[in-house]
């Protein structure tokens, strides 16, 4: 049996190569994801090890409270009093200890724009000339020794387009300040310009304390031991003097913590890539199943002969599976190599996008190889299982007769499909209404399978309909007939495209709905201008009081509605609720709340408004007093003045704007400005811009600019998804090529006859092309329908999370269908050429 398998493999090289491409791509993504994340995490490991190599023990303040997220900016921790530094220095075993101040500091480029990366942080720190553990060294210039001097890392200076001697503006907790660049720094480790695309500005210690809001203290103390004691012992000794408001970490603990943050980020990235690998493999499985059922059909006589010669059913099944096993094994091996390539490609892509990764070795863990092989071989064999079982049903007499294997009737398959699709829809419903994400994924999978099984029944009418549009000429007519000759094959081929387009379509629907919802939301606020920071997190992410005062002075402004955010525990319970501090203008004009009870048009001092859902959860009612504890640990006791219906802008607590003084981020996060009647919008806009000229991180946008910015972000996400789903579409195109090649092969004699009686090569090509386009369009239409269905379901599920309005991206969907048609045309190129080049005489003679 083995020899027959090998012979059969070699005899079908071309088809198997085409088929294996889908597995190769899928495995490439799986292994690429692992290789990339493994390599990067080892590189970050060694990077941090070398950066921290002189730090034996580090002391830092405890978090301000457990509710403050550590954004890696160095803030959110209690400052270390100066006295503790002296104590640490006296500890036996400490050779030297250097203090440091860290926090967020955004550098403003020469062009007046703040340097904002979408990933790496903007960091600020202190430059201590005596610090022997610092990972940084001067590349040029000197250390800062005055409050208006700063050292920038080489990367930062490049991005800001400044050099030693230039002036540079920096925004931090302490405001916006202009400095003279006195030095350019680099990392001691490998003379890097930056570690991973972060910006870094270093001030004198007093200036850092002021700018980074660490008054009279330090963020960290780096300790270098004398070498007499272990780091653990040193840590214990230092803990004795460091007080209760600090944490002490050894070098190992520090490295582990820093890399674990990175690894968490890489883990998300890994999952993201694996999801796409899953899509690619799922789509690929259809192509494989299709190819193997074609192979089995072509080999009916041969397999029947084997049966007649005494091979058991099991042996026939195994011979087909053995073929799949070999194909899967080879594809996985190639895919593994592809994964290495992909990991390099993605690194190149990210460095193009400005997110550089440290250089270093590429790691292929044994786990990667094992997973790649299991996934590649497993998917191939699983996909070949049905065709293999079908092969076993071939009766030995088929060797003598020209009888095909009896297909199960389409109706039975359609029933199974309908049941699966319905079960999938139910699973999706459960997943979307708070069930686990896995159930949602399973539901999507089942719906795809169900629709794929249903689609042969659908193919006849749809293909006939498409044919009526496309196939008026004889070539169109014949192409259409060919597409509907084998509904199962057409459906399986189209299924791959269906899945790809359904996913892209669903994302398109969600994106369009989100954009429309945002637009409506912005319009609903009635605000003329929206003012906020271009920085997403940290001290620079707010609109400072200084900036608010400037805005207030601008002529032609009617009102300013302001808002700040935090988290709060109610009456000391374990859970937290979102809390907004808002002024009356915000509550009355922007929020436009609907009262369930009490007065919700304003939020007077000493009162709190609460959403219906929170009130219900906690059994609160108007008139009750509650104690709120914010994430800083500070709090207030407030009286519930009103209960409002939850909406997309407010679903927690609303407190008076003055409460923000007790918040972690004390700044207003967003300000909505209404212009007075009769004032010229453009004039006010330019006056606002001028007033805020000293606040480079703060941006004034009118409604359309704000909407455009928000929707642009959504578009970016859509583009990323589309980019990855192109993979599924490429695999689908391969499937079409495969099916067409077979269609041409099977109809060799017909093609010979058609050519003999006068069909031109051009007409032959057109005929094959029509078949291809019809298959592609069938898949695309199914995909769009399923995708829109998914999209609507998702939108409904997310309607209380801001995506209130359903919008269908018609133009986008039409473009997808047109793209599918183009894919059909492209997929037909080679098979059509082959059909047109057939030798007529040989073609007529073939059996």
């Amino acid at each position, binding site marked *: 049996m083995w020899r027959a398998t090998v012979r059969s493999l070699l005899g079908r090289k071309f088809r198997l190569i085409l088929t294996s491409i889908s597995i190769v791509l899928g495995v490439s993504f799986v292994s690429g994801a692992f290789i990339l994340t493994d390599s990067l995490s080892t590189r970050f490991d060694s990077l941090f090890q070398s950066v921290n190599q002189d730090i034996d023990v580090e002391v830092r303040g405890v978090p301000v409270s457990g509710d403050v997220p550590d954004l890696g900016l160095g803030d959110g921790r209690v400052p270390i009093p100066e006295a503790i530094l002296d104590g640490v220095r006296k500890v036996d075993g400490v050779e030297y200890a250097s203090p440091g101040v860290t926090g967020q500091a955004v550098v403003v480029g020469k062009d007046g724009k703040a340097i904002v990366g979408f990933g790496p942080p903007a960091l600020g720190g202190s430059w201590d000339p005596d610090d022997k553990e610092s990972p940084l060294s001067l590349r040029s210039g000197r250390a800062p020794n005055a409050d208006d001097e700063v050292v920038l890392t080489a990367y930062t200076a490049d991005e800001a387009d400044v050099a030693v001697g230039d002036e540079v503006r920096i925004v931090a907790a302490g405001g916006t300040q202009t400095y003279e660049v006195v030095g350019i720094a680099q990392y001691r480790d490998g003379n890097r310009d930056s570690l991973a695309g972060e910006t870094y500005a270093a001030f004198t210690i007093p200036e850092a304390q002021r700018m980074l809001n660490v008054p009279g203290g330090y963020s960290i103390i780096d300790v270098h031991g004398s070498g007499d004691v272990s780091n653990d012992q040193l840590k214990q000794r230092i803990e004795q003097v460091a007080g209760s408001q600090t944490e002490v970490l050894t070098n190992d603990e520090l490295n582990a913590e820093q890399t674990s943050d990175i690894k968490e980020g890489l883990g998300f990235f890994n999952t993201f890539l694996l999801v796409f690998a899953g899509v690619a493999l799922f789509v690929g499985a259809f192509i494989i199943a299709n190819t193997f059922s074609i192979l089995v059909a072509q080999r009916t006589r041969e397999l029947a002969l084997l049966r007649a010669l005494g091979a058991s059913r099991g042996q026939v099944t195994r011979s087909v599976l053995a073929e799949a096993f070999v194909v899967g094994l080879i594809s996985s091996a190639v895919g593994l190599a592809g994964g290495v390539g992909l990991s390099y490609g993605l690194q190149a892509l990210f460095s193009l996008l400005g997110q550089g990764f440290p250089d270093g070795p590429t790691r292929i863990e044994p786990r990667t190889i094992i997973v790649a092989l299991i996934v590649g071989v497993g998917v191939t064999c699983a996909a070949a299982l049905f065709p293999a079982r079908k092969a076993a049903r071939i009766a030995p007499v088929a060797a003598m007769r020209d009888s095909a294997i009896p297909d199960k009737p389409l109706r039975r398959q359609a029933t199974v499909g309908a049941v699966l699709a319905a079960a999938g829809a139910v699973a999706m419903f459960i997943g979307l209404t708070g069930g686990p994400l896995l159930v949602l994924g399973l539901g999507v999978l089942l719906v795809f399978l169900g629709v794929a099984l249903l689609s042969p029944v659908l193919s006849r009418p749809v293909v006939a309909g498409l044919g009526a549009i496309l196939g008026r000429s*004889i070539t169109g007519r014949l192409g259409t007939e060919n597409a509907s000759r084998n509904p199962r094959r057409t459906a399986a081929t189209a299924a791959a495209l269906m899945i790809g387009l359904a996913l892209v379509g669903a994302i398109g629907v969600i994106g369009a709905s989100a954009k429309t919802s945002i637009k409506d939301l912005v319009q609903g606020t009635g605000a003329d201008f929206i003012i906020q920071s271009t920085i997403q997190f940290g001290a620079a992410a707010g609109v400072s009081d200084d900036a608010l005062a400037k805005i207030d002075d601008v002529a032609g402004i009617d009102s300013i509605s302001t808002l700040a955010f935090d988290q709060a525990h109610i009456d000391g319970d374990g859970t937290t609720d979102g809390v907004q501090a808002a002024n009356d203008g915000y509550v009355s004009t922007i929020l436009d709340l609907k009262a369930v009870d009490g007065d919700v048009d304003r939020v007077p001092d000493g009162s709190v408004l609460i959403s219906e859902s929170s009130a219900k959860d906690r059994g609160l009612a108007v008139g009750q007093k509650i104690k709120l504890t914010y994430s800083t640990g500070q709090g207030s006791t407030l009286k519930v003045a009103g209960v409002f219906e939850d909406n997309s802008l407010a679903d927690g607590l609303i407190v008076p704007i003055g409460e923000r003084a007790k918040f972690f981020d004390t700044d207003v996060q967003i300000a909505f400005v209404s212009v007075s009647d009769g004032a010229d919008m453009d004039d006010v806009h330019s006056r606002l811009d001028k007033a805020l000229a000293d606040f480079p991180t703060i941006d004034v946008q009118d409604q359309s600019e704000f909407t455009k910015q928000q929707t642009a972000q959504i578009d970016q996400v859509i583009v990323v998804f589309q980019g990855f789903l192109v993979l599924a579409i490429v695999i689908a195109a391969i499937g079409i090529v495969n099916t067409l090649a077979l269609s041409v092969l099977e109809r060799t*004699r*017909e093609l010979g*006859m*058609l050519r*003999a*009686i006068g*069909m*031109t090569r051009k007409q032959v090509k057109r005929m094959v092309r029509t078949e291809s386009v019809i298959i592609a369009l069938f898949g695309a239409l199914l995909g769009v329908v399923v995708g829109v269905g998914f999209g609507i379901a998702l939108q409904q599920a997310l309607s209380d999370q801001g995506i209130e309005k359903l919008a269908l991206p018609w133009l986008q969907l039409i473009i997808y269908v047109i793209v599918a048609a183009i894919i059909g045309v492209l997929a037909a190129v080679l098979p059509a050429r082959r059909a047109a080049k057939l030798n007529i005489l040989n073609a007529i003679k073939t059996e």
Partner: protein
Amino acid sequence: MTSPAAAPTNAGTASAGIAAQALDVTKVYGTGETQVRALDGVSADFASGQFHAIMGPSGSGKSTLMHCLAGLDTISSGEVLIAGRPLSKAGDKELTELRREHVGFIFQQFNLLPTLTARENILLPLSIAGRKPDPKWFDAVIDAVGLRDRLSHRPTELSGGQQQRVACARALVSRPAVVFADEPTGNLDSTSALEVLELLRRTVDEFGQTIVMVTHDAKAAAFADRILFLADGRIVDEMHGRPTAELVLDRMKQIDARVAGAPIPASEPR
């Protein structure tokens, strides 16, 4: 080489037109050791309005000659003319057009498209050419093949004989200068074969159709006006005037004997 057979029955038609012509045609397959001269200097005229049969033992070059005449295969030297047009220099486009406009085909395997009805199969050459059928001619052809009540059937719903008659109608529908048929009865039982042969005969008699049929069956050849005998790629004999099957068979036997005997004098007696 030509035998003293009777002169063509309708000499008038013969002089009126030659539908197809082979001029000293040779066809060589392969090179060197494996070279085969499938046609070795064949010259023949195929007069319009006549039923020509090409006979000969298997491997004698019958199919090759037909393919070369029909513009399906290129020739190594010589010239082929269809409706007065030389084929040796024509490219694929010209040959395709020529086949579409001037040649009809009937294959041994019927070669109908299973997805089309009988009517659609018959009209296929016109559809490919983008031409509308002449309703009168279409009616005449349908009546001649006797398939009026089967027009909406698909090939799988027709018997072998019926399928071949559909194929005949398909060959006739574009009024070609010449219809080529390669063993058209090779896949049929004797009753169906007879029907098809009678049909072909009728199209010659009633429509003045020119037919060139390749066959190795003497009974089939007996329907022809003129029979060319081929052996080893050469025309070795010719019969005219509708001889009986027995006479054709006798002539075949003579030729077989001559061909079989031929090599013996060439080699030294042992």
